C-alpha cells in the first residue's frame, strides 16, 4: 500500500499573526479510491463525505434527473442494510446525514462525533457497490422526487425562470438540463435506468472520500482500507460530453407564471477553471463579480439600489469551479417606478463602465481583504472546508486549489478584469429571461406588450 502524504502549508497572503490552516493529507487505495483528510482538532466532531464524479451534466436527453433520483435511492437500502435502516443507524449515532446532487457531482455526508467515523465508512462502503434498487422503493421515491420538483421549481416563479433560462442559454451543453430533471423524463424513468446508471458510476475509482475534523490521518487511512479496500474498481468510460458551440447572437425569452413582481435574469457565456484558455481568466471573472456585487459597498448596491434606486435587488455571480463552461449571471427585481428594461439597461451600463475604466485599486484592495477574511471565517465551518476539497476533485481540478484560491484571486489586476469583461461580457454571448407575472387569482389580466418594456416575446 503506497502512501503519499502531501501536507500543504497555508499561503502567504494571510495577515501577520494569523495561524496556519490545517494541512490536507492525500492517499489512494489500490482500487482507485482517493482519500483526502484534513485534521482539525478544534472540536470533537468530524464530517465524512463521499463525492462521486456523476451529476446531471453526465446525463443525456430522456433520462434527465436520473443522477438525483439515484441519490434518493441511495437511502433505500442494501442487502446488509435494508431500506430505512441506513438513516436510523446514522441517527442513533447522533449523526446528521444528507446528500446533494449538482451538475458535476453527487455527494453524501455524515457529520458525527469524532469517535464514530467507522459507522459512516461501513454504510458508505456498502452502498457504494451493493445498492438494492428495489422496484417498490423506486416507485415511491420517484413520487417524492416529483413532489420535490413541484416544491422547488414548478411553484417557485424565480426557479422556474432559471430552469427555462438555462434551457435557452445553452444550445447543446448538458448544463441546459435541470439537475432535478424534466418532468416528462421523470415520468418515464424506470428502475432499470437507475441500475444501469449505478453500475456505470458508483465505484471506488470514481469517488473521492473526504474526512475533516478531529481525526488522526493514519487511522482514517487504515479504516478506509478496511471498509473500502475490498471494493472492486469498475472500468469507467469518461462521458462523451456534448460541447457548447459558440453562441451566434443574443437570445431572449419570457416566462409567464403566477407572481406579483417581475424578475430579470441575464447570463453571458464564460469559461470555467477547468477549460479556461488563460488560467487567470476565471479568477478575473470572480473578482469582477465581487466588484459589482461583493457586499453593500460594491457597485450594484451603491449605485443601483441606493444611488439611482433602479433595483429593489440586483446581483452578479460567477463560479470558476465547474466542469464545463458556464455563465456569468446577473439577476434582479426593479425598484418601484422602474421596469425590467430600466434594470437591464442599468446592468449593461455597469458592464460597459468596467470595459471602459479600469477598476480602482481601492476596490480591488477591499475585495482582497474580504476574501482573506472569508478564508479565516471559513475555518469555523468544518463541513464547508471538506466540501471545497471534494468539489474541486469531482470537477477534475486539484484539491490544492482550495488553498491557493485566495492567492489566485489576489493576483488579479485591474487590467485583467477589463480584459475578461471585454472578451466575455458582450451581447453575442448573452441570454436574457424575464418573468412576466400572471395574476394569483387564476384569472387572466390585461397585458400590454409595453408592460415588459418591449421584451415580451422570445426572439
Amino acid at each position, binding site marked *: 500500500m503506497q502512501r503519499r502524504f502531501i501536507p500543504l502549508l497555508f499561503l502567504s497572503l494571510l495577515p501577520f499573526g494569523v495561524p496556519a490552516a490545517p494541512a490536507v493529507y492525500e492517499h489512494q487505495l489500490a482500487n482507485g479510491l482517493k482519500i483526502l483528510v484534513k485534521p482539525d482538532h478544534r472540536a*470533537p466532531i468530524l464530517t465524512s463525505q463521499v463525492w462521486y464524479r456523476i451529476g446531471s451534466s453526465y446525463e443525456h436527453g430522456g433520462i434527465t434527473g436520473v443522477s438525483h433520483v439515484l441519490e434518493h435511492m441511495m437511502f433505500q437500502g442494501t442487502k446488509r442494510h435494508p431500506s430505512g435502516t441506513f438513516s436510523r443507524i446514522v441517527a442513533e449515532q447522533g449523526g446528521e446525514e444528507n446528500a446533494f446532487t449538482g451538475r458535476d457531482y453527487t455527494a453524501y455526508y455524515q457529520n458525527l462525533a469524532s469517535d464514530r467515523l467507522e459507522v459512516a465508512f461501513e454504510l458508505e462502503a456498502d452502498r457504494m457497490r451493493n445498492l438494492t434498487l428495489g422496484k417498490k422503493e423506486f416507485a415511491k421515491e420517484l413520487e417524492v422526487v416529483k413532489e420535490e420538483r413541484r416544491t422547488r421549481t414548478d411553484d417557485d416563479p424565480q426557479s422556474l425562470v432559471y430552469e427555462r433560462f438555462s434551457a435557452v442559454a445553452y444550445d447543446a451543453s448538458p448544463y441546459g438540463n435541470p439537475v432535478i430533471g424534466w418532468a416528462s423524463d421523470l415520468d418515464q424513468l424506470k428502475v432499470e435506468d437507475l441500475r444501469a446508471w449505478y453500475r456505470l458510476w458508483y465505484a471506488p475509482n470514481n469517488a473521492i472520500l473526504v474526512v475533516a475534523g478531529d481525526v488522526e490521518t493514519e487511522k482514517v487511512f487504515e479504516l478506509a482500507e478496511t471498509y473500502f479496500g475490498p471494493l472492486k474498481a469498475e472500468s469507467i468510460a469518461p462521458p462523451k460530453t456534448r460541447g457548447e458551440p459558440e453562441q451566434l447572437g443574443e437570445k431572449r425569452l419570457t416566462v*409567464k407564471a403566477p407572481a406579483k413582481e417581475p424578475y430579470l435574469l441575464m447570463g453571458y457565456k464564460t469559461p470555467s477553471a477547468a477549460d479556461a484558455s488563460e488560467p487567470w481568466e476565471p479568477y478575473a471573472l470572480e473578482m469582477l463579480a465581487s466588484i459589482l456585487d461583493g457586499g453593500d459597498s460594491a457597485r450594484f448596491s451603491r449605485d443601483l439600489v441606493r444611488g439611482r434606486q433602479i433595483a429593489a435587488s440586483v446581483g452578479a455571480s460567477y463560479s470558476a469551479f465547474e466542469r464545463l463552461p458556464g455563465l456569468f449571471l446577473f439577476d434582479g427585481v426593479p425598484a418601484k417606478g422602474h421596469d425590467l428594461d430600466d434594470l437591464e439597461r442599468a446592468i449593461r451600463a455597469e458592464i460597459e463602465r468596467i470595459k471602459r475604466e479600469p477598476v480602482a485599486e481601492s476596490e480591488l484592495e477591499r475585495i482582497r481583504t474580504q476574501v482573506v477574511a472569508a478564508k479565516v471565517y471559513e475555518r469555523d465551518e468544518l463541513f464547508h472546508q471538506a466540501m471545497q476539497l471534494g468539489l474541486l476533485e469531482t470537477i477534475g481540478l486539484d484539491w490544492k486549489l482550495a488553498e491557493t484560491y485566495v492567492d489566485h484571486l489576489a493576483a488579479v489586476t485591474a487590467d485583467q478584469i477589463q480584459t475578461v469583461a471585454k472578451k466575455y461580457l458582450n451581447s453575442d454571448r448573452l441570454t436574457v429571461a424575464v418573468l412576466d407575472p400572471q395574476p394569483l387569482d387564476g384569472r387572466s389580466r390585461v397585458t400590454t406588450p409595453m408592460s415588459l418594456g418591449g421584451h415580451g416575446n422570445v426572439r
Partner: protein
Amino acid sequence: MCVDRTSLHAARERRLVWPLWIGLSLLLVGGLAQATPEIQSWQTAKGARVLFVAAPEIPMLDVKVVFDAGSARDGDRPGLASMTASMLDEGAGDWDADDLADRLENIGASLSAGVDRDMSAVALRTLTQQPALDTAVETLAGVLAQPTFDPDALERVRRNRLIGLRQQQASPRSVGRKALYRAIYGTHPYASDPSGTPESIGALTREDLMSFHRRYYSTSNALIAMVGDLTRTEAEALAERITADLPVGTPPAPLPEVSDLTAGSLEPIAFPASQTTILAGQPGMRRGDPDYFPLYVGNHILGGSGLVSLLMDEIREKRGLSYSTFSFFMPLARSGPFILGLQTRNDQAEEARILMIQTLKRFIDQGPTEDELTAAKKNLTGGFPLRIASNGDIIQYLAVIGFYHLPLDYLDRFNDRIESVTREQIRDAFARRVHPDRLAIVTVGGQTQRVSLASER
C-alpha cells in the same frame, strides 16, 4: 463555489427548538473529555447583560446584541420593529449608508440586523486583528446608538420592503405561514408577521421608527453575546464600548399571555400552484416551560428528526406523498407555536392532511415506543457535540440563553435531562398540551389549473 442543492430533505427546516450545548468544543483535546464550557457573564456599567465564551483558536469575533424589541412590540403598526432594524445600517452618526458599508467591508467585517417575534438582534462578525477590531466595534456602537433614520433612505427601504411583501404574496409557504399565525394567535401580538403588511409599512413615519428605537434600544433591555478570540478583560472593555452611547432606559412590561384555541379551524386559501401547502398549529410552549423536555423529545420523534421521524415515515417513506413533512415547537417568551406541515400535489392534499393529523393523534394516544424513545435520546445526546462545534453555533445559543434567562449551567445538564425523559412523561405532556381537535389548519393551493395566457394575448 455554489452547489445545486437539489438534495434530500432541505425539509429539515429551521432548527426551531434549539438544542443546547455542553461546550467541550473549545478544547483542543477532543475525544470524550467533556469539560464545562466557560460561559462568562457580567453586566456592563450601564447594566447590559453580557454572555461571553472565549474561543482563541481562530482570530475572529462574533457579537450579537439582542433587545427585547421583537415584532410583538409593534403595537398597531405591524413591521415597526423590523423596519427600525432595517434602517440601522442606512446611516448612523456622521456616516451614511455608503460610509457604513465601506467601513465594514474594507476590513472584511459584516453586520446584519434581524427581527423575530421576541427580539431585535444586530450581529457583527469581524477579524480580531487591529485596526479591524476597533473599526468594527466603533461601527457597531454607532449603528446601535445613533441611527439617523435618513428620510430618503427610509422611503427607499420602504418601497423595497413593499416589493418584498408582494413577492411573499406569491409564495404559498409565506401565505400559509402568515395565515396560520393569525389563526393561532388571534388578537395576541404574536399574530402578525414581523415583516408587516403593505398598509402598515406604507403608513409608518420616521417618528414612529425613532420613537421605537428610543424606547427599546437601551442597555437595561439588551443582552450582548460574544464568542471569539478575546480575553475576559478585552471582552469587558469591548462590551463597554458597544453600550457606551446607549441610554439605560427601562425594560418593557411582559407580553400578554397567550390563550389556548377554543375550537379547531380550517382555512383553505385558493392559490395557483401545483401543490397544496398544508400547515396546522396551535399555541405550544414558552422558553423555560416545565414540560419543555418531554415536549422537545416527543416532538423529535413525531416530526423533528428529519427522515426518521414518524411523520416522515408515514407521509414520505411509506407513501411518497411529500418531499418534506415536519413538526416543531418554537418556544418564545410566551407560548410559541406548535406547527406541523407538508406540501403535496393538489389532488392528494386531503389524504395527506388527514394522514398528518392521524399521525399526530396516534402519537398523542399511544406515545412513543421504548425503541423510539431510546433512538431519539441517542440521536440528541450523541449529536450534541455537532451543534456546539462552531463559533457560529455557539453565538446563537448564547443569545437564547441570555435573552430568555435560562440558567448558565443549563447546558451542562442538557444531556442528563434528555436522558431522564420517560415515555409516560411524553404521553402525559402531549395529552395535556396538544389538542388535535383544536388545531388551526391552513391550506394554500388547490387551484390546479395552471395559469396559461398565451392564447389571450
